[in-house]
């Protein structure tokens, strides 16, 4: 199984591929929103990112991340890490 830092870097790579504004880790704090007010990903890009996560990590598509609180870098990384640990 991948170690947590590797998972985190893989998630961030996916983010960088989908979000033009995604940059180095230092500029991607955990509380940075993926949508408006943050990385500016639109609705289609957000769903494609979840599809990427499903495909790359072999986890159920994390659709619940779209409900409730704003989706942030930290929420996405934590969710993928937890799903892969299950």
């Amino acid at each position, binding site marked *: 199984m991948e170690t947590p830092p590797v998972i985190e870097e893989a998630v961030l790579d996916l983010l960088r591929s989908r979000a033009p504004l995604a940059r180095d880790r230092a500029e991607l704090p955990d509380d940075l929103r993926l*949508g*408006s007010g943050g990385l500016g990903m*639109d*609705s*289609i890009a957000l*769903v494609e990112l*979840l599809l990427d996560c499903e495909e790359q990590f072999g986890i159920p*598509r994390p659709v619940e991340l*779209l409900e409730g609180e704003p*989706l942030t870098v930290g929420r996405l990384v934590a969710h993928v890490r937890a799903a892969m640990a299950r």
Partner: protein
Amino acid sequence: MNGAARWAFDGLESGLARWASRQPRWALGGAALLGRTRNRLSRRWPSPDDVRALFPRLDPRAAARVAWSIGGLEARNRVLADCLRREGLDPLRPLVRGALPPLRPPLLLGTFHAGAVHALGPALERLTGPVLALRHGPLYTPRPPVEIVTTEGDDQRRAAVFQRALDHLRGGCFVVMALDVVPGAGLRVPCLGRTLELARGPFALARLTGAPIRPLVARWQGGGAEVEVGEPRAAGLQGEEIALATAAARWLEDYLRASPAETGLGLLRALLSEEVSPSR
């Protein structure tokens, strides 16, 4: 047209909207007549010149008649929207005639702001399978197999709706959504010698699921509405959103060239706000 005349027209239209729940056929017919008259007197929204800018082959008299008809179409649609908000689909169901051609899901039905745009609801109820309709601000609560979800909200909220539509199509169901006149950045494609910005969402859904897109429109005919479904021109083009959007715009162009009076005012404004394309 002066303020008193505008006030009188608005008042008459409000009266027709209230009457529409009991006598929808007569109220909607009256609204069309009222809208035609209003346009004829004001020569605005749209003007005959607006119509000719989009359909230059029409002579001035024909353009004026189309402008009156669009005025009537808009008034009828306003009255119907008001009626739907108050009464739901019940008054409208008997007015939507005929059956849809056999449609096999998964299928994405794309609507345009053309013709009797609010009269599509009863036709959707006749589809043979679950239907998820995406709309910016639903007018009424539908009955099964139709479910309407709103696209209002921020990107994350819209992503949740987009995600539902994706699962719906992958589950072999119908999804209905507007292709034109939507907020946000879209796909710019040629239409009627101008540039039309279509929503990217439906074409992205088609790309991600492989489901074909078929145009869906309704038109007022006599005292009722008739629904028309376009051929799935998008089939086989999946993978290229812009190609799918171009095919949809071409279908719309053919439809409106044949029936210019079906051009909704919002669509007409969107087209006229864009520069004439160099290929014209």
